[in-house]
């Protein structure tokens, strides 16, 4: 039974924003809301918005087309943010945005990610608005661009039509165009979706989204920098017992199952490990097993990452001790193993010290690791050079177009997608949810293989 916690106005923080609120349903987040927010809402609203943003991130890295993204955004918003009462939705919308500003203002990389996702969210929500609502929003962004006067329009009509046709639209030209310095619409210029002349881009009404989004991005970008300053100078310290821990936890949030309690049905034993590695381990774990077998040793980072993974996969403590001892004793002797390494294995299983039952690392955590000399942990899609990665994937039986597809994802730094594609290539199935956790890879793999065995059994029994 929770007491309502102390209330606090959010107006004090993120004081960077200026200007008005939002026209209608789509806020522009110009000013921090003068609202009272309950502490639980502070966190919960942020988490729901984060689910939307992460869903968008996932959609983008999967290369979804604009129409698909529009649908995805609509679905994500409905699932996590919509409330029966539109006023409540707006409330949650604004609050969650400002909370996440606090969370994501703190480093350059966080700011970049947040900006990119909010921009995309805004873009697709804008597209879903009515033309009237769009016009209102445009004026709110003070885009001082007047519609092209008729005479000028006539002069360039042919070229405008040519551009429209070149991007697969109908030849009949829209009637409303804006003449805008090309610097304002970089994405339209980059994809040659506008006619350029003497430094101006001729932007169709339907393309106005691009204009609006650029402004939106610029506003939020500036606000984030100011928020960061405020955070660093006053808020972080002021709120160190209340908001700060929440804010810091949110930036690392992982939203899937944590595999801390492997279900009892899934048990593995040391003798299965080599076989399982071949069929069901993701590359990071395969690699560590290989190195462990080769060197009879793994450094701490590897022991943690691999050890916890095995735990999540169903390796019981006694078996884990057997497994590690079998390898390590070949290098350091079983006495030293018992003295120096057994303790930390038991610690991982929650049998020592403060008895925390440690959770196997998610992909996010693994990707952000920084393996040093002699380390074999971390995400191989991130840290392997191209040649090594090719060889490793070849060893897994991946080649040809599938291999190139994976390398392409790696080049664009979509490491989890690369792993997902590896899964799809080695198991001959598609994995729509994407890989977020090595143990997920393992259990999905096991599922697929068991289903295959079942089919084979069924076939052979008929």
């Amino acid at each position, binding site marked *: 039974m929770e007491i309502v916690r102390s209330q606090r106005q959010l107006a004090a923080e993120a004081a960077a924003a200026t200007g008005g609120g939002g026209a209608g349903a789509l806020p522009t987040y110009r000013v921090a809301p003068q609202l009272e927010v309950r502490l639980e809402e502070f966190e919960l609203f942020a988490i729901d918005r984060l689910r939307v943003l992460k869903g968008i991130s996932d959609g983008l890295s999967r290369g979804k087309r604009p129409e698909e993204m529009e649908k995805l955004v609509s679905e994500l918003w409905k699932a996590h943010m919509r409330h029966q009462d539109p006023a409540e939705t707006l409330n949650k919308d604004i609050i969650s945005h400002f909370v996440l500003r606090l969370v994501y203002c703190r480093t*350059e990389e966080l700011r970049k990610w947040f900006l990119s996702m909010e921009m995309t969210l805004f873009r697709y929500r804008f597209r879903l608005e009515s033309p009237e609502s769009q016009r209102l929003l445009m004026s709110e962004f003070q885009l001082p661009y007047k519609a092209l006067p008729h005479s000028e329009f006539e002069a360039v009509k042919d070229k405008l039509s040519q551009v429209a046709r070149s991007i697969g639209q109908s030849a009949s030209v829209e009637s409303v165009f804006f003449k805008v310095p090309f610097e304002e619409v970089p994405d339209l210029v980059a994809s040659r979706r506008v006619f350029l*002349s*003497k430094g101006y881009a001729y932007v169709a009404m339907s393309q106005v989204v691009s204009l609006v989004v650029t402004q939106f991005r610029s506003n939020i970008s500036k606000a984030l920098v100011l928020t960061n300053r405020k955070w660093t100078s006053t808020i972080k310290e002021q709120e160190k017992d209340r908001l700060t821990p929440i804010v810091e936890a949110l930036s690392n949030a992982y939203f899937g199952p944590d595999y801390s309690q492997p279900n009892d049905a899934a048990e593995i034993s040391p003798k299965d490990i080599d076989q399982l590695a071949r069929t069901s381990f993701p590359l990071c774990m395969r690699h560590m097993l290989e190195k462990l077998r080769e060197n009879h040793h793994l450094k701490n980072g590897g022991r943690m990452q691999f050890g916890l993974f095995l735990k999540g996969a169903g390796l019981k403590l006694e078996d884990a001790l057997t497994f590690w001892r079998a390898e390590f004793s070949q290098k350091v002797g079983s006495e030293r193993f018992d003295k120096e390494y057994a303790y930390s294995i038991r610690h991982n299983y929650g049998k020592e010290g403060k008895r925390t039952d440690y959770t196997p690392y998610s992909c996010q955590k693994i990707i952000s690791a920084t393996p040093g000399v002699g380390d074999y942990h971390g995400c191989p899609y991130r840290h392997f050079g191209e040649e090594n990665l090719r060889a490793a994937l070849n060893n897994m039986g991946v080649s040809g177009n599938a291999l190139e597809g994976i390398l392409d994802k790696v080049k664009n730094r979509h490491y989890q997608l690369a792993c997902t594609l590896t899964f799809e290539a080695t198991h001959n199935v598609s994995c729509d949810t994407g890989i977020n956790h090595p143990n997920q890879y393992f259990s999905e793999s096991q599922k697929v293989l068991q289903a295959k065995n079942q089919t084979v059994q069924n076939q052979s029994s008929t």
Partner: protein
Amino acid sequence: MEIDGQQQQEDTAAVPKGFNADYLRIYYGKLFPYGDFFKWLCYGNDGKHPGCDQSYIGRRELSFTLENDIYLRFQSFDSAAELESSIKEKCPFKIDIGPVYSVDPAKRHAYAQSGNNVFAPVERELIFDIDISDYDDVRYCCSGADTCLDCWPLMTIVIKILDTSLRGMLVCDFGFNHILWVYSGRRGVHCWVCDSRARKLSNEQRSAIADYFRVYKGGENTSKKVSLTGPVLHPFLARSYTDVLKCFFEDKLLHSQQLFSSEERCNKILELIPDENVASELHDKWQGNRRSSISKEDVNAARWEQLKMTLQSGKHKAQGLRRCVEEIVFSYTYPRLDMEVSKHMNHLLKAPFCIHPKTGVKPCSLFFVQLTCFVPIDPNNCDDFDPAAVPTLSQLLGELNAAGMQIDSESDWERTSLEKSIRFFRTSFLQPMLKACKEELESAYNAKLQQSKNALNW
């Protein structure tokens, strides 16, 4: 440097070909145009007008590569004299120009803390780098860093297309005015767009321009690297095709590269046709013709005509074939930019008037292209530009010798082939640009004055 038939002037004063620190020392001592170089990079801020930013030039990064590949970054200078003495003293084998930073690069460590990164690039010319070795898959006469009169025109094409788009008179996309094209000493061209509007572009905007120009997407796992979708071409591409690329391909490249003269070369073109049937139809037709007595010249033109007719005839209206002829022409001729150079403000690029230190000697080409100077190219006369005629280091030193050792060090370059280049640099680029800079500085200053006056009015 030798060109068939031409005699080396003043044999007694001739300097043996080569490149070493001594030659370079003389070049830096007597020929490098410090004043013009400095004036350029100041963009008018070296004047006395109160609107001038005295800190501007000191915030520009230069980098020197010394003998033995010692690399010095974040060099900066507050005066032409300082620049001159540093270069003369260090005798860099390479000089690169970087961006103008928010603070003097020499003081950057004092500012790089707390993740707020107050040390960041704030201005940088919009630059393009085109390397002829990126065209190795479509030229048969040379490869790597070598170039000859048959393949050099590919660079001329680049200049024509980009220059028109950047600043054309009648038709133009971007509306820039102050552009410097430079022969990059061995194997290509650099383009420096110096308008203040260009210098202030963000990385995202630079990327957008580079992507606007990008057609050729190399490096993927397919042989077809040009894909022109859509029923018609964007006006920029259409114009490039009709005004420049089509006739260059048909009138020049077909013959100079003998594009259809062997099975291997024909197949390379056939690979670009997405329809297997059409490709093999043409292949078989040409197999049959191999033994005929058509002269080499005619074979290329004839087969090209056949290919065009087949692709553009009524019976092959398949989607992928619509733009196939254009795609082939674009594949072989359209500019291939190094995207990374243009996209980031902090990219360092070789400075004009440097000497390129590596030799590119190809015994069977018409000339040796070696140790040449990075000289400006006149885009209005780029067809006449001959990379072979670019002054080399040894040639320049020979000319100096021939002119006699006079004390007047100001105008030593006037007695050498560098004279033409420097004059061109001044009249067609530097002076108009500095005039524009001055006007801009003054009007910006006046606007600020007005603003503060207004603020004081109640």
